[in-house]
Each structure stands twice: as C-alpha cells, then as structure tokens.
C-alpha cells in the first residue's frame, strides 16, 4: 500500500468551516441594537455616568457652598432649576455631585465584592473537599445575616465614614452571592472535557483554573455585577438616609434625601429630585442587567 497518511487527509481536508458567530461582546452589542428597553436603559445610564464624571464642569454652583440666606429651600426656578435645600445650596449641583459619590462608591464596592467573591468561590469550587466546606460555611453564615443588619452593625462604630471606608465595608458585605455563583460555574467547568484535557496535557492547576475554568464564570459574573451595582446604590442610599453615609459636606443621593425629610411638607423637591435620580438609575441598571442575562444565557442569580 502506498503511504496512506496524506491520502487519509486529502479525503477529509476541505470543508470550509462555518462562518463565525459573535462572541459575548458582539452579543451584548446585538442586544442593545435590537431591544428598545435595553437601549433606553443603556442611554439613561450613560447620561447619568456622564453627569457624574463631568459634574465639576457642568454643575452651575458649588454643591457644598451655602448661598445667601434668601435662597433657603427655594422651589425650582430659572436660576436654581431644581430649587435649593434648607442650607441654601443648589440642589441640581448637589445631585450631580451626589451621583459621583453614589455611583462611584457602588461601582467600586461591587468591584471589591466581585474580586473577593470570585477568588473565594474559585478556590472553593476548584479545590473542593474540606477547603470547599470551610469556605462555603463562611458564605452560608454571611448569607444568613441580613446585609443591612451586618452593615449597621459595622458602621455603628464610626457613625460617618470616608468614601473609601464605605467602599470596603459595602464590598466586604456583598460578595457572598458572587462566590456561590462562581463556585457553581467553576465546578461545572472543571468537569468538562476540555478542562480535563488541559490537565492531561500537564497544565498546572493554576493554569487550568485561569485559562479553562474561570473564563466560563465571567459572563454570569458580568450580569451579577451589573445587577449588584443597582442593589448597592439603594443600600448606600439607605445607609446615608439613616445617617451612616459619607461624611458631610460630601453627599450621596441618600444624604440629600435625608436633608429633605424635615421639610418634606414645605419643600418636597429637596427629597423628590434625588429620589427620582436614584429610582431612575436603579431601574435602568435592572432592566439592562435582566436583558443581558437573557441574551447571554446566564443563569438566574442566587440570593445576593
């Protein structure tokens, strides 16, 4: 028989592979194009984020500077579009700067939570055995205590916190759900044949985890983190409203709403406008997160 190796290949060689279908970024773009609700939500978020970033340039007044006495708790007018607060500060400027605090703290807190949760869940899911049991019992304990109680217990020591401290506190109380999600994805991915093949090729455990297992947890994590930002915005506002927010004169939306609670009957705008900003932001985040989940096929999230 002639050398058959080349012929066994020729037999097969040439069927052109099918055209590429888009990966996750492409699918996200496709969702935004096709789904009007997601498009609107993304636009709203972009607008709010831009307002937060450019607040120093677009805010008409200094948010911390009291104006003259005449301007105390004035209703919306052509000078003060959203009115002023009881300390005579321009409300629009305060809301714009408040967006920086609210969104900045929430975003960073979720980043902390995602990093901690991913590391914790990946370790538990990949190593398994008693390590998994110990790590996950910590998570179970964390999930057993209502987050708001946990937070109040911690912040009660300090009363008011600097923004970085708030990020750390919110982040470290918010990673339990994320770790469960990552653990489940890691457990599923490490049993798949390609992960076993990588082990069989002699890849180290770290390499298998980073290259073959963790990337498969990233899509659900992206969705979870998006929805997480929405939750943390609300929690941070709640803490601030209860008086445990960032220290004055910096203000988050929660602080501003709190400022208006004494004058709600006479100066409704002080609480209502930041409340609208808050609600709009959370709504937009939730809509976007939900549509992304549907589009990317990420699983339903466990309790945060």
């Amino acid at each position, binding site marked *: *028989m002639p050398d058959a190796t080349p*012929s066994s290949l020729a*037999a*097969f060689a040439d069927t052109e592979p*099918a055209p590429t279908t888009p990966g996750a970024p492409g699918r996200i773009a496709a969702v935004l194009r096709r789904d009007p609700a997601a498009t609107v939500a993304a636009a709203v978020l972009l607008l709010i984020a831009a307002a937060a970033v450019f607040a120093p340039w677009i805010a008409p007044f200094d948010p911390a500077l009291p104006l003259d006495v005449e301007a105390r708790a004035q209703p919306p007018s052509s000078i003060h579009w959203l009115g002023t607060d009881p300390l005579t500060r321009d409300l629009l400027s305060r809301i714009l700067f408040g967006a920086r605090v609210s969104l900045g703290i929430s975003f960073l807190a979720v980043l902390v939570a995602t990093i901690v949760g991913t590391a914790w869940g990946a370790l538990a899911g990949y190593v398994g055995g008693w390590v998994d049991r110990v790590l996950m019992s910590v998570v179970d304990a964390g999930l057993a205590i209502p987050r708001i109680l946990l937070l109040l217990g911690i912040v009660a020591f300090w009363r008011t916190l600097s923004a970085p401290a708030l990020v750390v506190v919110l982040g470290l109380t918010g990673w339990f759900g994320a770790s469960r999600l990552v653990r489940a994805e890691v457990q599923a991915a490490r049993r798949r044949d390609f992960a076993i093949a990588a082990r069989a090729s002699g890849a180290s455990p770290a390499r298998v985890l980073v290259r073959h297992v963790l990337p498969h947890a990233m899509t659900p994590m992206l969705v979870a983190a998006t929805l997480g930002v929405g939750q943390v915005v609300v929690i941070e506002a709640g803490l601030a409203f209860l008086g445990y927010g960032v220290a004055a004169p910096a203000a988050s939306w929660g602080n501003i709403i709190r400022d208006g609670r004494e004058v709600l009957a006479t100066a409704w705008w002080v609480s209502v406008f930041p409340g609208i900003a808050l609600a709009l932001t959370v709504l937009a985040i939730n809509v976007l997160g939900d549509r992304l989940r549907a589009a990317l096929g990420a699983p339903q999230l466990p309790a945060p």
Partner: protein
Amino acid sequence: MTSPADVLLRVTDLRTHFHLGGEVARAVDGVSFDIHAGETVGMVGESGCGKSVTALSLLRLVDPPGRIEPGSRIEFEGRDLLALDNEGIRRIRGNRIAMVFQEPMTALNPVFSIGDQVAEVARVHAGASRKAAWERAVEMLNLVGIPDPRERAKAYPHQLSGGMRQRVLIAMALVMNPSLLIADEPTTALDVTIQAQILELLASLQQKLGLAVLLITHDLGVVAEVTSRVLVMYGGQVVERAPVRELFANPRHPYTRGLLQAMPRLGDHRDRLAVIPGTVPPPTRWPSGCRFRDRCPYAWERCATEAPPEYPAGNGHGARCHLVDEPARDVALAAPVA
C-alpha cells in the same frame, strides 16, 4: 403486492425550508414516499440529511422559521394533512400517527409518575375517565414488556433505566392504537443489548397491532434487521429507495455504497475502511446539480449541471443518480480506502 388502497401515508414533493434572515436552509427539499399499512420503512442518513425534519413535518411540528412550502402534499388515511386546521392536526397527532424520539431522558416529565403520563394521553385523546385511563395505562405498560406494570405505573421516570423509559414512551405512543408510528432514532441513546430488546419489542408490536412504522436511523445494521423497505436520504432528498435486500445486495447510489463500505463490520478484517471524502455541506448551500457530486468518486460534468431525477431501476428500486441513466459509467471503482 400492494394495491393503492393499502397506502396509509403518501408524501409528495415535501419541502420544508428554514428562512434564516436572507438565507434559506432547504432542510427537506422534494421528498416523496409512500408507507403502506402494516409495513416497516427505514429512513437512513447521516446528521443534516433532513430525516428528522421530515418526521417533524409529517405531524406539522416544524416551528418557524421553518415552513412547509406550498406545493408539498401529505396524505394520510385519505386526508390531506396540510389542509387540516390546528384542531384537526391535533386529532391526528398521538392518535392516528404517534411518535417516539431518541432521548428517553428528556421526553418524560420528571414530576409525574409514568402511569399518569401514559394515562394522560388517553384522557386527552379519548376523554377517558381517570380510572379507565389508568387501567389503559397499566395495560399498555404490560404490552411493552414492563414487568409488574400495576406497581411500576406508580414509578417516576428517574427510577427507571434508559431502556425502560424508552418502553414507556412507546407505550404512550401506542395508547390510542395509531396506524402509523414514527420512531426517530429510538435506540441510538441505548446500549447494544438494550437496543436489541427495544428492536425486538417494536417488531413484535408491529406484528401484534398491524402497525406501520417509519424507523428513522443512522444505523444501516438496524435498518437491515427490522425494515422491509428503505429510503436513503442525503441533502434533504431521498437519493435511493429499495426493498431492504435489494438495497444491500445492489446499492445503486454512490452515497449508499460509500456508507456500506465505510462501516466497520464484525468479522471484517480490512486494514483500512473506505471513506466518503469531505463532509455534508450546510443546507443553505447545496451544490448545483447533484448534491452529492463533490464527494462522489464517479461525478462527471453532467452531475454539476443537471440535478438527477429519481431514475427507476426495477424491482421497486430507484436512485437519484445519473449512473442509472448511463450504466456504462458504472464501472467497478476500487473503493477509496484513503
């Protein structure tokens, strides 16, 4: 041997296309065949040949973007199935024509007992009372060889093996005494000893109930063992049809020949297997002319320009291949053993 009155199902120029934004996948593209009462017809082909879509089309179970194109005809027991309204076709499904699928794991609902699920069919289609339906379920489970059916009817799907689940699905299919059973790869997910049991069961039921069976499979061995006539599918078309012995003794289409030679067989000590080069093209891009030509060792110019019709080859044998028309070209080729 069969008069026209015996024709149970007549499919004429069935075309089921999937309209995928700009492209059209012609999954089933001009399929015609008859099934006579009480016979077992095999439909054989590899993935992507259109055999499963054909089966779904017979019961009008193709979902958009799939569509049975105008001009297709499906006549069953003298009725035009494509002219029926939704209510009418529902009365056919599971009642006169029943279907068994490949995956016995997913086809059963995990939260109901198997007895409930078999009984449900009788309640829906015959309006049977709860008690009568349950009795019928037990009777059917007995018929398909489930031991101790009265007790086992209370079992849940996860408590059964794959083979037992497939028996339950067959019981569900047969509750209403259908005249045609479509079995789509009914043994593919099963072990070989269990496959033997299920094939035996299908054959005995067919005898007992006078049932016609359309058996869809990729396995020529299964076809040889249980069918009397065979349709070979490729590229959304029937490329060869013949009584089973005739097909295996004298395959006329190069694709059928390739399949037979590519199979490793027991007791066959060839050093290398013959192969069919290349892979099945996607249904959006069938080649012009003969759809098999770019994998065919015989292909010549005519195959690229002229789509072969099905040429009759005698004895109920037919093949969609110009070789039948130009037998001089049908010289014995050394099987490609690449």
